């Protein structure tokens, strides 16, 4: 299992046949140039006070890639980033940079720069001096520094801010200064630790686009840490989903969304109905008292599985035409669609539909074969996927920005 997970390619190969034709190609296939491994983590484990934070992490990061470490608070993503930055060293395992072991290399000798969670701009320096900091340490000549700082300020849309006091900048501006301060050193890799966590939603969306553009312009490898799945999906070439100190899945955003490997990933990325089922034979699965056609194969006969059905993939039809029937228990208007909770034999499904249905109405559900994704049973089975306790409030709680984690 672990070995499979460690290989980015294998997973994306599995996903290939099911990708919609208009989907962007995964990072592994994009471009004709062969990507080179820039950073490699081998069997990394780390514990604090006997508590395991990272458990045998295997991961490689390609040159010029935008890779995101995604997971809930305390999953080990920040620790992984700090190990790459040199602020922590692994208890077990090795980290390689361009094929060279760098376990014991201090941060100031690594070709890596970091954008810290709360920016950590030097309060005693103005915008110009903050950005020039790294170059001055590297003893670059002042006239060259001037040229490069000006260039950087332009890149992050802060031209004319040279003399400003960093303490008086808005969150978004501080963010840009932090990015400029890191990028000006032309690092091989830029580490970003929840860089947009402190910004409001609108600004966050803008900065996502900007970051993506900057990455494309500079061609620097970005390693991005976030707990926001939407952010991860929209920005990354590769997403690494982590939980409990372990890598759950590595793949392109599309792979991760369409082909989650287990109930944790399915639940964490987007909304999912996860239902206990039995794989009767190839392309035939039974759950919720009905036998469905599906596109998955390679399971044992009558193997217990988890079936994932995304809320937007279910068609609402009249009760007599449905494969399944259920009673609508709640309807919430979400702008683009309605989010309805449907009770089917006691299991609550979430369904997103653009047609209004009334609460307590009995409706039919129709599920296409390609809307069903089958996953092997895992330690996360039966923990997620039922919306019986679902409420918007709960959803908002989990959206609250994470504080610094170890």
């Amino acid at each position: 299992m672990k070995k499979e997970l460690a290989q980015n390619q294998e997973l994306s190969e599995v996903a290939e046949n099911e990708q919609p034709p208009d989907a962007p190609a995964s990072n592994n296939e994009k471009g004709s140039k062969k990507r080179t491994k820039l950073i490699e983590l081998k069997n990394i484990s780390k514990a604090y006070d006997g508590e395991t934070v990272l458990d045998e992490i295997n991961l490689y990061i390609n040159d010029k890639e935008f890779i995101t470490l995604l997971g809930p608070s305390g999953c080990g993503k920040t620790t992984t980033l700090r190990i790459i930055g040199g602020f922590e060293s692994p208890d077990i395992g090795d980290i390689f940079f361009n094929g060279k072991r760098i376990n014991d290399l201090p941060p100031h000798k690594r070709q890596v720069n970091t954008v810290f969670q709360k920016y950590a701009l030097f309060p005693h320096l103005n915008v110009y001096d903050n950005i020039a900091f790294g170059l001055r340490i590297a003893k670059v000549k002042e006239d060259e520094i001037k040229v490069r700082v000006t260039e950087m300020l332009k890149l992050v849309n802060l031209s004319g801010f040279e003399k400003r006091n960093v303490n008086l900048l808005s969150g978004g501006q501080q963010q840009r200064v932090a990015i400029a301060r890191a990028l000006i050193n032309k690092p091989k890799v830029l580490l970003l630790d929840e860089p947009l966590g402190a910004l409001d939603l609108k600004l966050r969306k803008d900065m996502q686009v900007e970051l993506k553009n900057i990455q494309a312009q500079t061609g620097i490898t970005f390693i991005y840490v976030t707990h926001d799945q939407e952010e991860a999906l929209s920005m990354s070439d590769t997403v690494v989903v982590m939980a409990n100190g372990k890598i759950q899945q590595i793949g392109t955003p599309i792979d991760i969304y369409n082909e989650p490997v287990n109930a944790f990933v399915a639940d964490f990325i987007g909304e999912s109905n996860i239902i206990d089922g039995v794989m009767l034979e190839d392309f035939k699965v039974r759950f919720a008292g009905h036998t469905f056609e599906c596109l998955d194969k390679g399971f044992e006969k009558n193997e217990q599985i988890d079936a994932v059905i995304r809320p937007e993939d279910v068609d609402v039809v009249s009760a007599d035409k449905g494969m399944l029937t259920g009673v609508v228990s709640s309807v919430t208007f979400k702008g683009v669609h309605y989010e309805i909770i449907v009770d089917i034999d006691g299991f609550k499904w979430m369904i997103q539909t653009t047609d209004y249905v009334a609460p307590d109405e009995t409706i039919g559900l129709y599920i296409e074969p390609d809307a069903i994704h089958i996953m092997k049973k895992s330690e996360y089975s039966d923990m997620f996927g039922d919306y019986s306790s679902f409420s918007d409030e709960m959803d908002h709680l989990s959206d609250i920005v994470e504080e610094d984690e170890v």
Partner: protein
Amino acid sequence: MKHRSLFYKFAGSPYLVWSIMFIIAPLIFVVYFAFTDRNGSFTLENITSLSSYSETFVMSLGFSLIATTICLLIGYPLAYCMSRTSERTRNILVVLLMLPMWISLLIRTYSLMALLDNGGLVSTFLTKLGFQKLTFIGTDAAVILGMIYDFLPYMVLPIYTSLTKLDKRYLEAASDLGCNGVQVLGKVILPLTVPGIISGVTMVFVPSISTFYISQKLGGGSFDLIGDTIERQFQNSVTYHTGAAISLVMMILILISLAIMNKFSDNEGDMIV
């Protein structure tokens, strides 16, 4: 609500009464005495006559500057080391540092005197080791040592506080941007702890420039710092007016130097004093 606001209105009044009686009124007396002669009529003579004390002023300034500098040189590294230890060790070290402050300054100075006196512990020990008989009391070094000994904790504590308050992320950011250990110290830690340094310098400089008992006890009576001069003037009712004038000028000098130092702290507003 009304009741509460009334309470808050008067909560500060005991201190107000106190400060009027013991701070403001005496200050007015000082000013009054400084500008009057024995008959109570206005004169500038007290101030103009101070030129004869300029040497004392300069010497006091020199002594306190040396003491402050040495305190800073000892205090900063000490505070830095303390701030780097584990929380447990750190608390023990802070208690150890504060311990002498629980004893009266006067008693500490007396005990230092006993140690340094001819026939005191230190000279006995040194003569036993074969050194020639050494005299400490009455030397410049003894007075400066006394100042350092008495006031060092006041240098260490504010610096220590600003070091422990320093966000670790700044240090990580600096080393991320290419600083080695020494550069992190020079480019980030030192500049960010300037407010602590200013507080410490103030808290050592002000008491050492105005001290009189340290120079009296450890100077063996041969020292005349500005504090001693003021004390002497007030022991004799005839020279009250000169004493008041010296006090006034010294207060103004201290205020000016505080203002200059505050300028250095760059409005970061972390002043502890």
